[in-house]
């Protein structure tokens, strides 16, 4: 169950955050925010390999509840973080990658919209639909 998805610009405030099981949402929000720091670290650690598009996160396994946090950074330093339930072992790396790719694509679509100012929160219905369908699909 991909419990939450967040995308955030370099300033690390969320442009969009969505959780599927809405209980404990706050906890997932917290998790996602903390993971942003780790993503930042990875970015800075990468150094030259700036173009590396995909980041696979297998860390951040809480001892109490298993869930995995995946991160993804775009060229423009927009971070996507996804928290997925570990019990969902059917989720393979490829699927996570494809989900991130979908997110990235939808994000670029939003960017294409001249009425969208970069830095605004994302209110696009299309984006919402895409994220919802993606999360439903994994559930």
């Amino acid at each position, binding site marked *: 169950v991909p419990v939450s998805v967040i995308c955030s*610009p*370099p*300033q690390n405030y969320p442009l969009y955050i969505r959780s599927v099981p809405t209980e404990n949402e706050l906890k997932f929000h917290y998790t996602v925010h903390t993971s942003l720091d*780790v993503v930042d*670290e*990875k970015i800075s*650690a990468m150094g030259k390999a*700036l*173009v*590396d*598009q*995909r980041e*696979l996160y*297998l*860390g951040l396994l809480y001892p109490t509840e298993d869930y995995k946090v995946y991160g993804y950074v*775009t*060229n*423009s*330093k*927009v971070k996507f973080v996804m928290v997925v339930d570990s019990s969902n072992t059917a989720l*393979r*790396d*490829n699927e996570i*990658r*494809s*989900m991130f*790719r*979908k997110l990235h*694509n*939808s994000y*670029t*679509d*939003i*960017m*294409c*919209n*001249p*009425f*969208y100012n*970069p*830095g605004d929160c994302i*209110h*696009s*219905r*299309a*984006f919402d*639909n*895409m994220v919802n*369908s993606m999360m439903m699909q994994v559930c």
Partner: protein
Amino acid sequence: MEGLTLSEAEQRYYCDLFSYCDTESTKKVASNGRVLELFRAAQLPNDVVMQIMELCGATRLGYFGRSQFYIALKLVAVAQSGLPLRVESLNTVKDLPLPRFVVSKNEQESRHTALYSSDADNPASYSGVIPPPPGRIQVKKGSVSHDAVQQRTSTDQQESTSPVVSPQQSPPTSPHTWRKHNRHPSGGNNERPLAGPGPFWAPFSEAQPGSSTSSDPIWSGHSPPPHQENWDQTTVRTVASATTTNEIRRQSSSYDDPWKITDEQRQYYVNQFKTIQPDLNGFIPGSAAKEFFTKSKLPILELSHIWELSDFDKDGALTLDEFCAAFHLVVARKNGYDLPEKLPESLMPKLIDLEDSTVIPVISEVGEQTGEVGYSSSPAEAPPSKSPSMPSLNQTWPELNQSSEQWETFSERSSSSQTLTQFDSNIAPADPDTAIVHPVPIRMTPSKIHMQEMELKRTGSDHANPTSPLLVKPPDLPEENKMSSSVKFTAGNTVTDGYSSSDSYTSDPEQIGSTVTRQRSHSGTSPDNTAPPPPPPRPHPSHSRSSSLDMNRSFSVTPGQQQAGVVAYPPAVPPRPQPSQGAGPHVHRPVDAEGLIAHTSTSPQQIPEQPNFADFSQFEAFAVSGVNKEEDDEIETHSEVLQVEKPSDSASSLRVAKADGRVEDKAPANVPTSAGKGTTPLAPPPKPIRRRLKSEDELKPEAEEHTQKTGVIAAVLASQPSIPRSVGKDKKAIQASIRRNKETNTVLARLNSELQQQLKDVLEERISLEVQLEQLRPFSHL
């Protein structure tokens, strides 16, 4: 059709309507769209309308001529009177009321109503579709209705946005409101005597007073006219046509599709488009469109949503169709209609012929989806082309398919429309800490996108994705060519005697074909790679002899090792196989390596080196048993094993060796083997000598920077060349060699799969190691 006798009033009325429908001023043919709108306005059920159309002969003719039109109108009147539709009734029914075409009401915003009233105040112009007050009507006395219609249209266009928008109030009529008004007209009609043009206005006059929601001064304007019995006939006709246009448009729109763009609307949109972008085939950039639509004073959020809906190909710019759709949505929104979740059918791009419907369209489901305009599947899963799932649409989208060609018709950008909007990754933020660099979408051709994808996959060393390695880089394609030729060479070489060489040659193309097919199949998932893989070379009868192989190509990438291999062998003893053999493994290597992920790191290459090497030997041993070959005197350690094999086997085993893949590491291993193979006696001396010479010549100029893969291919090619040439046309030998090569082929394929599996395992190891490494790394920063 039998002669139709019309009363004078009918005559005039029909003439009016015909002129209204005669959008192209042909005076002979009524525009199908208008006619259908008219019929819909008649409030007749669809089947009745169909029947009418059949009866009047329009279905037969395909268009509405004047007579057909008149007949149809008469039949409408008949139907509206409740009489059965018969051809005989045309002339037999007397005192038939004029056909009634009901206009629909809709909620008009006060802005528009004010507009209309302002128009009404203007005696001079016919602006808007409102019939002017009686005074104006007299001004129009004697004007041809035909001209009036056109004039009205032109004046519409001259106006600013809001006036022109007003006619469009008609389309998005809420059906329930419309129906409510309908009750009034029908009631009114029944009561009023339909003696003249008056009845035509009956609906409005009845509806107006009765309508509680009618807030349109427009229609109230109609009230006085209907009551005037002393109108000039022509003016009435004028007014009738003017109003009819609007009403019927409303009716038709409300009947079938609130989102349909009418002619006037479309024309207006096109004009507006021209003001921004003179080229109708060009695009309006996003910024310009933003400015333009911001003028409509809609909230940014809604404009953003409208943009999402209408920018069909997601490229940040609007084509004419997209612009019209966006404009229409803006208009609708301004009139209080909620934006749909997805683009309605009638607004989808490629809607060029909005009113050309030869058949009454089935009431299209409003909001029928264009499907997810977003990316429904990631490029990894589906072709890079973004293909919205198109549910059944009323309009045919002949080009629509899952490939990227589906948008080609309506926009030259279409080829990329289905593809990912890629960002120009070269835009590096000047300061990484600055805000998001506004990404610049670059239009990607499918092939380019695919290449990028492949790059992504490659960098990610996605071993799970078998497609990436095959399509890793363009060198694949030239390699393919080399491979094909090299395989041919190999085939030639594998034959011990002249005959068998041809056989092996013929079989090798099959190998090539299989490899190429393999590549092709992968490229199928990502269409339009930089260039389609060359078709599997089919051996021509002459191929076995002719060295159609491009020696230059085959040896173009001989790595230094090959030359070493070549040089290593003294030309003395049948050196012929040597260079060929030497080339063989290298040739094979690239061929198989293409099936593997290209890894640049050497460490993983080292790892599989050993086990693969072992496999190689095993395979060689296996291959040896299959084919009978000549044996060479000179044998190196490896070569011994190899040389024992038949040339065909050596070629295949070389391929296997190559499959082990990290080319550099393999090179030393392969060199001896190739050298050994080189010594394997193949064809009669003259051929090998020729080959050697040729291969040497080829190899020498080789640049060392060529990948070993291609070099291996070249080597294989080199090993084969002369034999096919010199081989006779012995069919039996050819067939035998074909069989042999097929066997070799299957063996190689099996080996290939094994090696690929090994490769995958190795890659997984590597990834896990990397992950561990990365896990350790962050802590170093703390």
